[in-house]
């Protein structure tokens, strides 16, 4: 029996639960494959080449793209739309909902994105170069592909959903932000079912790679699988990844009414802002965000069993997050920390949602997956309880806390509970 938290005292129509998960990650295109890869230490990072930047590394997703989308629509749309359609369709399929009879006007789509439109803009500029930059050769598809709601809108078109759809631009906190938006809209009764999470098509824009490289924050390693190495002394930056992870969220009252398989309950969340720098994190604000999420859920730090860290493999970012974590979780001896980016790289808008998903099976198997590629732990990142290189079985897992932070100082935390 789990001790009471604040959310579990709310009426069932104010409690929000996860009833389906659809995902594609560089090391698995469904939750079972993804989890297996995380437990087996299997990386999804590979050699990659992109125009102008040349040879680099990336996390690349492989899944059956035509299972839920026609080739015609794939050509018309974007990669963000395609990974989103896959994840949304899988999330609904796995939720056990009687989808043909679901009122599509009461379904909301809330998709977190780090950025959107760079891929298509770069492609068009590259294309019209062959025509001496004559803009009459610029594609009429450019605007529908680059409007900020595109990934959510493509999901709506594909699945016939007529409720609200939009994206939430929240840098690399976007996956958490999408989930949080879904929870809020369900509590406000703006929808009866939410498809929420995040997507990333970022490996298809050379600008992301080039900008990280110019910033001195693009990872390199002769072995691609060892390039993403948060907390290690030899970490040298970010591996960019694509991906998608979307959740079917429902009010507990609705989930109970249809006897749904409830995967977890979202018990708390928080978002705040550093307001100190464009790129450098602020551990004081991160700690405040963590504390806000704990307080809102009526939880003390020692109630959390696993913290899924945001750490991206940059020199400053990882150690700054560790300062925040030490401040909040000092003395929590049974708490374990892990990191998913060490396996798949940084899936940008999808990162927060994917990193939470990969940890959820721990509610059943009580195993905390590791952070891999730590050969020499940076003393500044030596969190007590950091699970390094090998998974660790825990006596019990009731609460998982998921960190996701992003540029312009956006911090987000989501806390979920075993149900």
């Amino acid at each position: 029996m789990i001790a009471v938290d604040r959310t579990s005292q709310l009426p069932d129509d104010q409690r929000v639960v996860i009833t389906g998960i659809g995902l594609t990650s560089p090391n698995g295109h469904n939750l079972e494959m993804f989890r297996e890869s995380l437990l087996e230490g299997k990386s999804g990072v590979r050699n990659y080449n992109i125009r102008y930047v040349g040879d680099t590394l990336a996390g690349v997703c492989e899944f059956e793209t035509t299972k839920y989308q026609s080739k015609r629509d794939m050509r018309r749309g974007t990669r963000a739309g395609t990974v989103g359609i896959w994840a949304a369709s899988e999330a609904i399929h796995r939720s056990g909902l009687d989808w043909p009879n679901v009122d599509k006007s009461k379904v909301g789509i809330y998709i977190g994105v780090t950025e959107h439109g760079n891929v298509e803009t770069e492609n068009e500029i590259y294309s019209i170069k062959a025509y001496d930059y004559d803009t009459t050769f610029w594609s009429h598809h450019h605007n529908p592909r680059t409007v900020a709601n595109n990934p959510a809108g493509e999901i709506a078109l594909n699945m016939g959903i007529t409720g609200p759809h939009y994206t939430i631009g929240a840098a690399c906190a976007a996956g958490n932000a999408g989930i949080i938006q879904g929870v809020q809209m369900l509590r406000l009764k703006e929808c009866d079912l939410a498809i929420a999470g995040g997507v990333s098509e970022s490996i298809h824009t050379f600008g992301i790679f080039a900008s990280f490289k110019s910033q001195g924050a693009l990872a390199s390693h002769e072995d691609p699988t060892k390039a993403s190495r948060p907390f290690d002394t030899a970490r040298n930056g970010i591996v960019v990844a694509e991906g998608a992870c979307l959740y079917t969220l429902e009010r507990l009252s609705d989930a109970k009414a249809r006897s749904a398989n409830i995967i977890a309950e979202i018990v708390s969340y928080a978002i705040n802002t550093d307001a100190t720098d464009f790129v450098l994190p602020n551990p004081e604000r991160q700690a405040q965000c963590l504390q806000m999420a704990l307080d809102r859920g009526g939880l003390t730090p020692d109630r959390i069993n696993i913290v899924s860290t945001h750490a991206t493999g940059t020199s400053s970012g990882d150690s700054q997050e560790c300062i925040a974590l030490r401040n909040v979780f000092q003395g929590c001896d049974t708490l374990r920390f892990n990191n998913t980016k060490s396996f798949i790289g940084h899936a940008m808008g999808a990162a927060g949602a994917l990193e939470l998903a990969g940890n959820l099976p721990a509610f059943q198997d009580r195993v905390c997956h590791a952070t891999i590629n730590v050969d020499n732990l940076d003393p500044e990142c030596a969190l007590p309880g950091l699970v390094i290189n090998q998974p660790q079985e825990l006596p019990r897992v009731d609460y998982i806390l998921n960190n996701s932070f992003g540029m312009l100082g956006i911090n987000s935390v989501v806390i979920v509970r075993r149900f």
Partner: protein
Amino acid sequence: MTPAEIREEILDILSEIAPDEDLSSIDDNKSFREQLEMDSMDFLDIVMELRKRHRVQIPEGEYGNLASMGSTVTYLEPKMRDIVNA
């Protein structure tokens, strides 16, 4: 290009625009919309591809000539007769 070559070129463009469709049984006298799942953006794709591949300009007021394979080939023949098929 001969009318037959223009027809082949249009089929090639259509295979890119509508990759899920079976184009082998296109009836030249029936409209594309009757036979294929096509909307105004797809017709703009035909216009754009002809411009990119052959620098053929189609004024907006003449888009209606692209309704069927037959009308398209008839309309394009004078514009493309001097183009040498690559």
